[in-house]
Every structure is written in structure tokens, then in C-alpha cells.
């Protein structure tokens, strides 16, 4: 095997690695916020035992340091390790890693253990391959000793260790015990890309079988001896407190065993969900709403619109955009409004916790181990290492299970704590949120108001670009607020203050008003609204300047080869220069383009729409091009583009959480409608070939879809859409 690095790669010592982790853990405990630059920039150690275990039955169990919530992480992690190990795909099994930031900290998340920001493959690209290469080397060393042959004469193919000259062979299981006694090699040799046997191939997802047979285990499916199911009556408005409650009727419901007050409401416990549900229905809670949130959506937008008229905190300034605008031959402006959005993953939130003399054990679709572990440790007065977290499959998340405030995890913890010391102390508790709880208990994608202005010179070239964003900062509203520097929260301005376009001058500024509505990252975070504002305004500018929207972008991207390659690919695959096929008689058809970089990947999409005579419309086809570095599994990349498009389209067509005097109007899928099969367009995904290290895939497919659809509707003759969700009439 050729070395990718002829010098080999020297391991960090275990001690160095541990030191970085210990500093970090302390940082989390002190104030539950992380230092802006955590101590985990260290290169990954090759620690095969942390990532792979070979069974005597010849199974290869790979320890996943990232959550599988649909994005294909388990398949990607397994591919990386199994390829370098030369394991057979069929012998690979997956197991969730325990909470242990020293071992499993995410270097792309400042060293805390967690999954998010589309970082799983970028974070694991080297770690998992090194672990696989180390395990392979140890198997080879063990075989060389047993057979008394030089290591260099041994090869490994699909889970079999071979000595061709003598015909000797052994499977991994047979060598496992001996290999474990070998020392971890100091120098590792990773494969060259042309030697990859699994990486880059459209392997079957490793979770397929579990998920088509119903065997996959989610938090919702956990059942432990003596376990109780808890439902919580939450406040009707954010900030309301329990004044008093009457649980007599609730306690009379068959199966209900306890009712306890916790900080977020009143919990009803029973042996099963249905009994707890009936008990909660019978519960009477009086709320003190004197300090509760009482605004309506129109009040919030009115306040934001006023702020959008005032200069904000500057996030980016290139040249004097005001002067350039004043001197421009043509001026354009637009304002946008984006609603609060719910994540609405298919699995409503839930968590299982058991507290006994041995410590705390939790079962969760765990997206932020370090944060949830520290929160539970603080709640129970335990050292973090006595909080064990079992990471199970998550039935979607889209950001919701990565909460810096650990809301639902702590809620479950508070119920367990309230039982401790009583007759039910020590019994495991499964907290289950109903769909209505999930929809109404907050942590939404924030609402935003944008105001943009552009100035064009006499030739139609953009000489001034001004972009103002008004809305809650997600980091700024969280225990991670220390990460907000100079008043600029990247969760608000990313995708607006780092554009690839060459505008003559530009200024991006921001207002981050405080509001008691809990907010959180939602698939693609700030790019979920910034891409819409930028890409639809660009089309408005192109129309005003009499330019083709693609030509305008090609010009603005001059010198940006990666972006240009993605743009050219999507234009070619969408037949952009050819007329769009006519639709049914009476239909008006249109085609729209959008491009956006997020999570270090570049995605461009062309959407085709049909507007019917009655004013309704369909999205018929989406052509998508993506550069995400090397595609570890091209079929998973395609699936994530399809999924990002569907999730983004769902929000664009009908997603909105609204407030009426502080109460959330929506409650379930009947009034928070989401994309269904008849609305799903045909999606064609094209991947730019790349040998660069992998970049994000789970989120980058989303940002371009809403602006591509809006631009297509405008091209079909509709008015420009400046408020989401899209309403044509």
C-alpha cells in the first residue's frame, strides 16, 4: 500500500489527546458555555479501540461518534473506517459512542461532542480512516507473528488476512484476540484515493435493514423494567408559571401513578402512554401569565420593520456602499419577511432517564452529548462521567435535538429528580412529547425581516449592495452567547456576510432584538433565509438590468472556480439555454436559478414550475448540482440533496409558526402542513467530481430551493414573492 504521506503520520500520544479533552470538559462545567476557541484543534489520535471492535464471530463493530438522524452518518463513518481496514461491508455493525468528549469530541464544534453544522464527515474523515488503518496494521502484525512471515508479504481483502506465498489465511475474528495485544502503530499509512474500495461507491445504507423491518430502535421504543411514561402539561404561553394545579381527577385515571410539578409544568406519570395521556387530559392547571409572552406575529413584524429602517451593527463593510449607492445610475430595494418555523421531525421529542445509586443513565437521539451530559450532571449533582448517555437513532432532528439549553432532556431529568427519594425513586422515566407539545413548546427557526438595496451603474453592473437583517440571534439567545463576538452572531448573518459574489461595495448589518420566543438552529441555520433574500434580489436586479440571471451570476463569480463549476454544471444539466417545455394548456411555466454556499459546500439548483389558470402552482422538477468535496457515498449525497430540497420546499410552500397574543396558532400536521408526496418534484442531482476533503451534505441542499422556486414563479409571470410561505393570490 502506498502512503498518502510519505513520512507517515505520527500519532499524538494518548496523554496529549486527553489533556485537550480535560480542559474542554472543565470549560463546559464552568458556566455551561464553551470558550470561543476550545482546546481541541489537535490532530486526531489513531485510537482504534475507541472506534472499532472485532468480535470472535468475525463481526466488525464500528463505534459512531455522530448521531444518525437520517443524514447517512452511520453509513459514512462505517465506509471510512472499513475501507482503510479492508473489512467486508457485510461484516460491519454500528454502535453509538458513549458520551466522552475526550475521545469523541468534534473538532469542527470546538471539541464538544456532538453532531451538527453538517460536520460529521469533515470531522471524521481522518479520524475514522486512521482508526481503520491502525486496526488493519495490528491484524497484519498479529498474522505475521502467528505465521512467522514478514508483514510486508501479507495482504488484506474484504475481511480476510492473506499470505499468498503460503496460501495461509485468517478472518478478522480469528485474529482479533492476538491483534488486540499488538501495540497501536506509531506511523500510519492511509490509502491513496485510487486504492479506495468503499469510499466513493454508492454502498447500501448500513441502516436499511433495521429501518425497513421496524427493528431500528429509537428513543420512543425504549422500554426498561419498571419504566414510567411521563407527559407534561406545558405553559400555554412562553414565560407563564404554574400558579396551582388540581390533580384529583388525573390521579383517578386508571394507570396514573404520580403527578409532579417541575419547572416547565406539571408531569403525569403512568405505566403507558395512553394512561398518561388520559391523566394529563384530566389535569387542571392554573397558570400565572402575568409575565408571559403576549405578542402577536403582526406586532413582531411591525417592530422588526421599524428596526429595519435603522442602521444596525455592521457585520461586513467593503468600501463605502452608501456613497456608491448615492451615485448609482439605478437603485433597487426590497424587503422580506420570514416566519418562525418548527422543526417538526417525525419522531416527537422524547428522552429516557434512570437515576440510581450507580449514577444517571439516559437514552436519547443524542445530538449534543457534552452539553446534555453537563446539564444532567449539574441537575443531579454528579460528576459528568457518572452520566451515561446511550445514543439511539433519531427520527429526524433538523437541529432540534441539539439544544444548548438541553430543554427536553432537562425536563425529563427534573421529573426523575422529583421522584427520587419517594416510592417511585429509581424507576426509569420516558418523557414523551405529543405532536402538539412538539409544535408548541418552542425552539423555532427565528422570524426575520430583511431590507436590501442595490445600486447599478450605467452598464447594469452592481456597484453597491446593502443587506440588513433583523431577528433573534440563536447563539445570542443560548448558553453559548460567549461565542458571539462584536455583536455579530453567525447564526444570523452566515450566508449574507460571506457571499462569493464580487459586488463593488457592500455593507451587511444586523439588529438582534430580544424576544421570549425560544429559538434554535433549523436545517441550514441562517442560510435558510439569507439565501432567499440574496438570490431572489439578484434575480430582481437581473430583470431590472435586462440580464439573464445566470449570466449575471457567472459575472459576479469571476475567479470563484469552485462556484463557477457548480453553476455551469447545473445550467448544462437543466438545459438552461434551451426554451422550457410547454405545460398543459393554460399553464404558465417558469424556470428559476439559485446558488448558495453553506457548510463549505456549494449547491446550485434550477427549479421548473407551472402556474395553473386557478392561480395554484406546482414545482415540477429540480436540477441540483453540488460540490461537497469527495463524495464518500454519492447515493447518500443525492439523498441529502433530495431531502434538503423537500424540507426547504415544505417550508417555502406552507411553513409558518404564528402567534396570537403569545399563543402558538399551530398544533399538529393539520394546521402546520408539510410537504406530501404529490408535491414532491422530480429531483436530478449531479455531483462535481472532487478529490478534496469532504464538506457538508446534510444542510447545503436546502438554501437554494426556495429562491429557485420563487425566481421560477417570477419568470412565469407571478409577482415577486417577498414574504414566506409563498402565496401567489
Amino acid at each position: 500500500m502506498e502512503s498518502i504521506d510519505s513520512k507517515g503520520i505520527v500519532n499524538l500520544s494518548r496523554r496529549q489527546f486527553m489533556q485537550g479533552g480535560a480542559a474542554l470538559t472543565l470549560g463546559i462545567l464552568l458556566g455551561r458555555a464553551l470558550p470561543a476557541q476550545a482546546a481541541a484543534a489537535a490532530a486526531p489520535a489513531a485510537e482504534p479501540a475507541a472506534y472499532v471492535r472485532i468480535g470472535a464471530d468475525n463481526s466488525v463493530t464500528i463505534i459512531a461518534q455522530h448521531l444518525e438522524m437520517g443524514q447517512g452518518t452511520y453509513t459514512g463513518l462505517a465506509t471510512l473506517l472499513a475501507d482503510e481496514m479492508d473489512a467486508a461491508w457485510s461484516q460491519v455493525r454500528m454502535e453509538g459512542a458513549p458520551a466522552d468528549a475526550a475521545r469523541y469530541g468534534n473538532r469542527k464544534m470546538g471539541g464538544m461532542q456532538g453532531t451538527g453544522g453538517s460536520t460529521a464527515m469533515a470531522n471524521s474523515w481522518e479520524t475514522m480512516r486512521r482508526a481503520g488503518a491502525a486496526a488493519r496494521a495490528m491484524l497484519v502484525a498479529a498474522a505475521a507473528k502467528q505465521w512467522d512471515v514478514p508483514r510486508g508479504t501479507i495482504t488484506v481483502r474484504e475481511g480476510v488476512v492473506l499470505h499468498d506465498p503460503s496460501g495461509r489465511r485468517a478472518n478478522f475474528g480469528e485474529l482479533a484476540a492476538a491483534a488486540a495485544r499488538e501495540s497501536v502503530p506509531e506511523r500510519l499509512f492511509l490509502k491513496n484515493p485510487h486504492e479506495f474500495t468503499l469510499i466513493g461507491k454508492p454502498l447500501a445504507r448500513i441502516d436499511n435493514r433495521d429501518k425497513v423491518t421496524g427493528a431500528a430502535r429509537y428513543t420512543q421504543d425504549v422500554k426498561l423494567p419498571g419504566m414510567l411514561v411521563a407527559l407534561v402539561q406545558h405553559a400555554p404561553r412562553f414565560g407563564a408559571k404554574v400558579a396551582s394545579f388540581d390533580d384529583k381527577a388525573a390521579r383517578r385515571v386508571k394507570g396514573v401513578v404520580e403527578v409532579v410539578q417541575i419547572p416547565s409544568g406539571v408531569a403525569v406519570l403512568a405505566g403507558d402512554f395512553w394512561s398518561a395521556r388520559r391523566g394529563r387530559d384530566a389535569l387542571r392547571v392554573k397558570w400565572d401569565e402575568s409575565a408571559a409572552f403576549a405578542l402577536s406575529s403582526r406586532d413582531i413584524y411591525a417592530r422588526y420593520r421599524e428596526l429595519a429602517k435603522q442602521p444596525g451593527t455592521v457585520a461586513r463593510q467593503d468600501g463605502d456602499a452608501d456613497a456608491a449607492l448615492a451615485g448609482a445610475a439605478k437603485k433597487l430595494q426590497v424587503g422580506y419577511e420570514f416566519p418562525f418555523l418548527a422543526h417538526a421531525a417525525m419522531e416527537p421529542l422524547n428522552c429516557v432517564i434512570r437515576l440510581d445509586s450507580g449514577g444517571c443513565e439516559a437514552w436519547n437521539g443524542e445530538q449534543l452529548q457534552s452539553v446534555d451530559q453537563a446539564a444532567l450532571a449539574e441537575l443531579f449533582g454528579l460528576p459528568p462521567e457518572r452520566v451515561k448517555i446511550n445514543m439511539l437513532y433519531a427520527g429526524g432532528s433538523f437541529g432540534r435535538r441539539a439544544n444548548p439549553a438541553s430543554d427536553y432532556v432537562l425536563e425529563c431529568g427534573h421529573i426523575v429528580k422529583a421522584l427520587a427519594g419517594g416510592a417511585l425513586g429509581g424507576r426509569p422515566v420516558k418523557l414523551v412529547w405529543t405532536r402538539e407539545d412538539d409544535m408548541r413548546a418552542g425552539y423555532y427557526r427565528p422570524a426575520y425581516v430583511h431590507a436590501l438595496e442595490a445600486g447599478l451603474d450605467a452598464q447594469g453592473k452592481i456597484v453597491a449592495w446593502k443587506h440588513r437583517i433583523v431577528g433573534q440571534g440563536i447563539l445570542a439567545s443560548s448558553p453559548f452567547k460567549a461565542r458571539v463576538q462584536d455583536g455579530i452572531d453567525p447564526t444570523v448573518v452566515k450566508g449574507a456576510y460571506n457571499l462569493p459574489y464580487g459586488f463593488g461595495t457592500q455593507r451587511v448589518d444586523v439588529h438582534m432584538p430580544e424576544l421570549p420566543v425560544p429559538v434554535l438552529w433549523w436545517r441550514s441555520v441562517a442560510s435558510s433565509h439569507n439565501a432567499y433574500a440574496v438570490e431572489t434580489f439578484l434575480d430582481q436586479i437581473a430583470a431590472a438590468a435586462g440580464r439573464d440571471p445566470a449570466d449575471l451570476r457567472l459575472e459576479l463569480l469571476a475567479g470563484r472556480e469552485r462556484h463557477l463549476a457548480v453553476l455551469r454544471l447545473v445550467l448544462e444539466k437543466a438545459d438552461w439555454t434551451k426554451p422550457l417545455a410547454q405545460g398543459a394548456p393554460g399553464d404558465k411555466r417558469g424556470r428559476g436559478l439559485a446558488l448558495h454556499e453553506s457548510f463549505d459546500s456549494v449547491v446550485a439548483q434550477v427549479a421548473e414550475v407551472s402556474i395553473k389558470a386557478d392561480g395554484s402552482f406546482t414545482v415540477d422538477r429540480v436540477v441540483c448540482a453540488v460540490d461537497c468535496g469527495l463524495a464518500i457515498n454519492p447515493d447518500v449525497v443525492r439523498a441529502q440533496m433530495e431531502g434538503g430540497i423537500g424540507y426547504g420546499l415544505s417550508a417555502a410552500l406552507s411553513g409558518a409558526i404564528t402567534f396570537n397574543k403569545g399563543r402558538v396558532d399551530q398544533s399538529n400536521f393539520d394546521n402546520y402542513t408539510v410537504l406530501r408526496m404529490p408535491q414532491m418534484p422530480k429531483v436530478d442531482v449531479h455531483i462535481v467530481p472532487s478529490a478534496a476533503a469532504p464538506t457538508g451534505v446534510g444542510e447545503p441542499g436546502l438554501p437554494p430551493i426556495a429562491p429557485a422556486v420563487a425566481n421560477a414563479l417570477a419568470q412565469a409571470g407571478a409577482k415577486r414573492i417577498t414574504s414566506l410561505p409563498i402565496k401567489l393570490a
Partner: protein
Amino acid sequence: MKLNVNGQALAANVPGDMPLLWVLRDHLNLTGTKYGCGIGQCGACTVHLDGAPVRACLTPAAEAVGKKVLTIEGAADTPRGRAVQAAWEKLNVVQCGYCQSGQIMSAIALIESNPVPTELDIDAAMAGNICRCATYQRIRAAILEAAAAPRG
């Protein structure tokens, strides 16, 4: 209460108005059938009652007495069920997977009643099953694939 689930006679000591979903999940340990909305909007709890797809979250358990209940755990017992699962695997349909038990049960029911569905038939039959990962395009393709599979 006695129920026939996946060909097995099972007993559960539950009130008759408890939805079948919670009897299956909490009392019979058949957790492949999922809770998603509780109001028949999402289809994650789809099971078959005497061959017809129903939402288990809205079906009182008493209604299932004397009928044959088929859940995802029994889907592989029929050739069509196996064909649908195989097509799902071949086309890498699943993402988070939480809705897929319900999707597969709806798909099997569709092919049982309409062995050669068109794309429009599929859209109509599957419109009651939400997938937030938006695996819809692959579900459509997998149903066509399964319908075309040789009967065995």
C-alpha cells in the same frame, strides 16, 4: 382482550378504547409501528386490519378484535411485503426511517389492491404518509420497482 397480530394470538389487559397503536407499542412490545401525530394526519402508525390500511392511532383496540392485524414486524411474511422491503433497500429509500414502517404498510396495501399502479396512483395512495426527510421520490420509485418484481 385477545388480538390476532401477525398470525399470532396475543392477549393484552387494556381498556377497549385504547388506540391499537398503544396496545401494539406499550403492551405487545411491537414498536415498529410509530407514533407521529395521534390524529391520523401523518400515517406513521399505519397497519393493516383484515388487509386494509388503517391508522392505528385512531383505531380503538376493540375494533381490532376478531380481525387480522398486520404490522411491519409481519410484513416479511407475504411475498408482496418482501418485495416492497427489498425495493426499499435496493433504492436506499430510508433516511431517519421513523416514518418508513407506515410508508411500507401503505405501499403494500396499495400494491395488494392495485398491482400495477401509475405514478399518479402512488401519489394518491401515499399522500397520507408524511416523510419529513422527503424520501418521496425514492418511495415512488421503490413502489414501481416492487410492483414490477416477479411474484414468488
